[in-house]
């Protein structure tokens, strides 16, 4: 089986994996029920970034937009503070300066992160008055510092009724947050956003645009639901028979959007021999890499929230062993000889092994090149599941050269009797050289530096025996 097939197989399997999904929880109704009984929640922080620009004063049904936002957000904050391991904070913009001042620095963290601060947020919301402009990009930039440094799942929910009005790029600001691993894509809840504003937010993240106060409440709940969603994941690493027996491999989970490595999980089987369940944030789209040799990639994995997800990745493995067949030799000579293993999708070097070490590889065919003198190239070496492929290599012998005069020349091999190939260039400044060579016949072609005629070239045959030293004097 080639590696490429494994990768294609795993992608094919992935489309199937939606069918494997096992439903553990009922669909949610309200925020307070979002904690699944089966999973413990990691610390989750939600930062609300609220628009308090002048336009928020405009009427929207029975209330102004601001009054609706005030009321809905205050109530939801109260509910959120009852969920364990969830912290909230509030940043507001456009509330400190008048619209005509066009103050683009008008953004402030009004309520910092803390446990149970629903009441504090409610109180602050009713103290503020909207009036100014809309510096969204700056607000997102500054939001980076609103989150404490301790690791947690950090989310931003941005509530706004208009587009950036300070000529900066909110997309770039949001992207920088992701790149730095501070938070994932912000969730946006729009209050009757005009079309052009909606377009400008497409790059930031998921947008819920609301046409009425009732819809706004629903959308904000949905955004919070997403922010708090939990899920579990079982990764089945399949052997050649399609059984999930492979384990003890590290798996890196990358954010598919940013390429940032979010988590590493060493694959574990529980006492019953099943892959254990991992609590996982379902918000990002993941690229998963299983660190076999060569690694197996599974891109664009979507995790369904509030469910146990099962993913199958074929990682059948076998072993490769390089063995010296003759008498043992000095370890510095032995360890210097590297065995290059090439293969995988791009036919690149996937590993470098030394003698008498056994390493694991994905099953498949590999090219092996052993850096002896001369090099040994073996193509299409097969690694079979759970089997050890042993490559026997004759122990080299040593050519010990002593030179009475500085000499030009090299060690050559007459390949098949008709091709002269240089294996080694003599070091012209060394009086003594020890060169490890595979057993066989070679030519030493050389001439003293001081000799001024080509006819003084010496062409001498010699034979190297495995594990033995041959001393020659030039």
């Amino acid at each position: 089986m080639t590696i490429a097939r494994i990768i294609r197989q795993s992608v094919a399997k992935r489309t199937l994996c939606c069918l494997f999904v096992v439903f553990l929880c009922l669909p949610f109704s309200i925020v307070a029920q979002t904690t699944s009984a089966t999973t413990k929640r990691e610390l989750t922080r939600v930062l609300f970034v609220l628009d308090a620009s002048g336009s928020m004063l405009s009427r929207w049904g029975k209330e102004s937009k601001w009054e609706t936002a005030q009321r809905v957000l205050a109530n939801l904050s109260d509910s959120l503070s009852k969920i364990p391991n969830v912290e909230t904070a509030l940043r507001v913009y456009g509330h400190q300066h008048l619209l005509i001042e066009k103050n683009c620095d008008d953004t402030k963290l009004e309520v910092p992160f803390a446990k149970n601060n629903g009441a504090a947020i409610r109180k602050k919301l009713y103290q503020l008055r909207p009036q100014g402009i809309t510096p969204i990009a700056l607000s997102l930039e500054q939001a980076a510092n609103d989150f404490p440094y301790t690791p947690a799942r950090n989310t931003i929910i941005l509530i706004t009724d208009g587009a950036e009005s300070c000529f900066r790029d909110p997309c770039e600001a949001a992207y920088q947050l992701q790149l730095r691993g501070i938070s994932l894509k912000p969730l946006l809840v729009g209050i009757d956003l005009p079309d052009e504003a909606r377009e400008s937010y497409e790059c930031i993240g998921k947008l819920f645009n609301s046409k009425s106060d009732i819809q706004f409440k629903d959308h904000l709940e949905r955004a919070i639901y997403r922010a708090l969603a939990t899920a579990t994941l079982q990764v089945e690493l399949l052997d050649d028979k399609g059984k999930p027996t492979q384990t003890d491999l590290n798996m890196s989970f990358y954010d598919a959007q940013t390429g940032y490595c979010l988590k590493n999980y060493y694959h574990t089987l529980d006492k019953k021999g099943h892959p254990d369940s991992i609590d996982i944030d379902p918000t990002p789209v993941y690229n998963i890499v299983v660190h076999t040799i060569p690694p197996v990639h599974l891109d664009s994995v979507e995790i369904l929230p509030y469910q146990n997800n099962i993913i199958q990745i074929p990682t059948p493995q076998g072993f490769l062993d390089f063995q010296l067949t003759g008498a043992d030799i000095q370890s510095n000579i032995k360890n210097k000889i590297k065995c290059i293993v090439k293969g995988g999708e791009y036919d690149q070097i996937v590993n470098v092994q030394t003698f008498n070490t056994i390493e694991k590889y994905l099953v498949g065919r590999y090219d092996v090149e052993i850096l002896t003198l001369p090099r040994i190239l073996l193509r299409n070496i097969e690694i079979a599941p759970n089997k050890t492929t042993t490559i026997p290599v004759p122990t080299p012998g040593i050519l010990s050269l002593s030179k009475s005069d500085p000499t030009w020349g090299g060690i050559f091999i007459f390949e098949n009797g008709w091709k002269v190939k240089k294996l080694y260039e003599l070091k012209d400044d060394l009086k003594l050289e020890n060169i490890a060579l595979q057993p066989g016949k070679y030519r030493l072609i050389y001439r003293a530096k001081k000799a001024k005629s080509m006819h003084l070239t010496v062409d001498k045959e010699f034979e190297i025996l495995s594990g033995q030293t041959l001393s020659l004097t030039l």
Partner: protein
Amino acid sequence: MLDASGSMKELWNDKSKFEISKQLIFHLADSLEQSNSNIEFGVRVFGHQSPRSLHNCTDSKLEVVFSPKNAIKIKERLDKITPQGYTPIAYSLLQAANDFPKDSLSTNAIILVTDGEEKCEGDPCASALALSKNRVALKPFIIGLNLPKDIVMDFNCVGTYYDAKDETAFNNVLNNVVDQAIKNTSLQINLLDIKGNPTISNIAFTMYDYYSGNIKYNFIHTLNGFNLPDTLFINPAGTYNIEVHSIPPVLKVGVELKPGTHNVVSIDMPIGYLNLEMENKRPADAMQCIVREAYSSEILYVQDLNDNEPYIRGDFDLDFLTLPRYTKKLVYVPEEKEKSLTIPKAGTLQFFNVDASIASVYEIKLGEFKILYEFDKVKEKDMLSLIPGRYAVVFRPKSAPKSDYTKTIYFDIVSEKLTSVNLR
């Protein structure tokens, strides 16, 4: 160079071997000096001055010096000589080096006529080698007068051996040999630098027969005393492929030699140098780098770090077999210049694993985890040599068999510094 040892008195039919030799040499010199104005003969004789019983091992003398039209002189001189003594071949060959006028433009050849083996414990092979250092570039021609097979073997290292069983055969062989010596075909191989000057040398090359592909000659290219490519005297009846053993090799196909002339072949050798270093490397570090021609998957050469090797100008892909491997693509080695690459000296990772964690080390490159090494769970302490950079250890303690307990520790490796990581 004529044998005048005692055994040369032996009769072939009704004339002694010496008598026959004398006549044939005279006739040859006589006819050639009339047809060819650019040839000169000299005659050295050995074994003629002391009787055999004296065992004189320095009995060798240049009887006729080189000069134009000296056939008569040769005859007169040889007529006065009586063979009687020993066979100091090695000594004679050594002396012969000084018999040739010090004129570098001439082609010098030796024809040795003998009926016996070296008797003075000298080494004719060593003498022949010394000769070739001394302006006599052509291997000596040896004409053996009915020599036993075991003696013939001894002459193989001296030069090209021809057997003569009787007078007719002797005559034929002598003419043939002189023909070869006169119709000298020489070859000069110019290995050109980028300015077109033949300055490149001291590199091995092979001459293959163009038609059969057989290996014909191997030489180390040489500049002579005038710093010009040395002249080769080889079999003119041939077309050759010449392969210069550079990295990669340079091939010149179908080189045809014009017999009887001086042939000059030029091969472009735009050589530059690739210098691969590791800072403050100790010889024990024994690091290597795989060199491939750009875009090729075939290994061209495996270069030791801290070596400076010549390459034919071009783009190369390099894979340093450090941990982690360090790949550098499209490295251009310019002609006549040196391209240097230095790898920073490795640092050391020391890790403690008292909990028998399953653990592996990763190189972090642009945020990506690349596995480098899996630790042996059984070892409580281990060391690893890594080139400077950003790394991570990922591990899961044996006592906590859940994926969720996997931990990732990031660390930096600094040249020649020890970084300790405790897996707990």
